């Protein structure tokens, strides 16, 4: 017992050192790679836009003004108006909130569930591992979007159900990455030492293995966030995600963007640009995180 209490502060110190080291290496990479800095800035803008959508949006995203329907971009309406005279800029700003919210929650649920399954598989190995990993193989055999479509078809189209479907798509890949990281972390001498001095499993997992797994999880999560936004937009575009009149980027493209593409190309241009920028920002930021935290992949 005395040994454990004597080691605790050292352990806490080591962990905070790791955190500081990680942030420092991220900061160095961001400074070295301008694209990393640009993506971080873009993400900050997106998050602020989503949080302050009510303040930033010049008009109510649902307020229709039929007298100015399909108006071209102007000073009053920089992104133009749609078929019933709603301001496209305000709808894109509010759509950002939906996209980030769905992306974050889906990614969060998928990451946590994937992490738990991965930890269980990697730590317990044996039959649990075999069974759960084959189940993950079974899920992964179905392409992500097709699986998400099938899940939404069962649960009925809605934003929440799209979120659940996306989370389900994320789980298998994440569990596999965490499992791999756990298996390699288990080889460390200090894990063996912790087992030898009789530490309980939850303690070994939480204090000795989990810190080794956080870097790959964060890298994958940031990349998945971009993908989750893309899948949500695709589901909404296909009519099985967010339902009208809620402003969602994918839905804006499919409902008005395609119907009025010849008269009003801005209806398709701006929501698509917003999706691309958001996905691009998260992809680039994921790359930067990987460069900073995953030495094996550093070029």
């Amino acid at each position, binding site marked *: 017992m005395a040994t454990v209490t004597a080691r605790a502060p050292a352990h806490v110190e080591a962990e905070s050192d790791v955190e500081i080291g990680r942030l420092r290496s991220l900061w160095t990479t961001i400074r070295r790679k301008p694209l990393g800095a640009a993506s971080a800035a873009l993400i900050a803008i997106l998050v602020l836009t989503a949080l302050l959508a009510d303040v930033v949006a010049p008009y109510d995203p649902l307020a229709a003004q039929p007298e100015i329907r399909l108006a071209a971009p102007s000073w009053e309406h920089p992104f133009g108006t749609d078929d019933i005279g709603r301001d496209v800029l305000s709808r894109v700003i509010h759509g950002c909130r939906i996209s980030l919210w769905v992306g974050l929650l889906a990614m969060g649920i998928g990451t946590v569930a994937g992490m738990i399954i991965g930890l269980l598989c990697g730590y317990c190995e044996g039959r649990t591992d075999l069974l759960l990993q*084959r*189940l993950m*193989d*079974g*899920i992964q*055999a*179905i*392409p*992500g*979007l*097709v*699986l998400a*479509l*099938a*899940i*939404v*078809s*069962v*649960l009925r189209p809605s934003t929440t159900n799209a979120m659940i479907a996306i989370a389900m798509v994320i789980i298998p890949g994440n569990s596999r990455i965490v499992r791999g990281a756990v298996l390699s972390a288990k080889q460390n001498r200090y894990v063996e030492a912790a087992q030898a001095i009789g530490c309980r499993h939850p303690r070994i997992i939480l204090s000795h293995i989990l810190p080794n797994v956080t870097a790959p999880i964060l890298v994958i999560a940031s990349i998945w966030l*971009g993908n989750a936004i*893309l899948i949500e*937009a*695709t589901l909404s*575009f*296909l*009519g*099985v995600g967010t339902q009208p009149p809620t402003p969602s980027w*994918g839905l804006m*493209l*499919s409902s008005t*963007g*395609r119907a009025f*593409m*010849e008269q009003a*190309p801005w209806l*398709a*241009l701006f*929501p*698509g640009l917003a*999706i*691309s*920028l958001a*996905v*691009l920002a998260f*992809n*680039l930021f994921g790359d930067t995180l990987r460069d900073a935290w995953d030495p094996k992949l550093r*070029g």
Partner: protein
Amino acid sequence: MYKYAVRRLLLAVPVLLLSSLIVFGLMRVMPGDALTALMGESGNIGERELAKIRKDLRLDLPYHEQYLLWVWQMVSFHPGDSIFTGEPIAVSLAKAVPVTLELATLAMILGLVIAVPIGVLSATRQDSAADYVGRVVAVSGLSFPDFWLGTLVITFAAIWFHWIPAIGYVSFWESPLRNLQQFLLPAAVLGFRLSAATMRMTRSTVLEVLREDYVRTAWAKGLEGRIVVYKHALKNALIPVVTIVGGQLGVLLAGTVVVETIFALPGMGRLTVEAILFRDYPVVQTNVMLVAGTLVSLNLLVDLTYAWLDPRIRYQ
């Protein structure tokens, strides 16, 4: 090689069985059952009629019997009828599969034609303007949603060239020119999306291989640059590219769903989306399973190709 192929084949069977269980289970977790939900949405239908339809569709059987029956139907190529149109699913699939197959093949070819040369150019001229352009193209391919690209292509093709996607599919054997006109733009959109990951992978593997000792030897003995890159480096660099192309098959199959919907191509993807919108669950479960089966088989093929290219893998 033979032993490896058999082992991989045996491993694919449980994966497919598990996928079928997942798809089957998914279609049954709906509160009530699929039919009640469908009928509830479509209007007033009496209990007796509902019971009759349920019996016709064998939904009154216990779950395990329904599952075995469905697996048998799938294996014997008679996956039942659509609830909505009454058409046998096999007939709809026979019409839809060639469309998707053509789109996917064309997209894959276009994707590789875009990806490999740009990837090699990016690597051989690292940090030059050409490299930056190549990398921006690759990242855009990963970030631009295919449905947006598709919509833009149709929008601007309509505005500038007064071209709109043809309604009604024309098969290649009927009129090759009209068929290619129909498929070229959708395949280009899908191919561009596919090329992104392949381009990045080609760039990084070529870069890695160019730093190998044997490539340095090739340079040192005075070989021409083109021969060093194409004969010595590219051959080895392409092995991991085969894997990434294999990994792209899922993206390809998912991409056909979106692209077919946008360009009004009557393929598997559009059939699946329509079935989902009409909650035609026999069609949904058959199509999803077929896509999973195709993906598993193609991945198996990729693994075998990989083992053939790199003999070390067979002995792991």
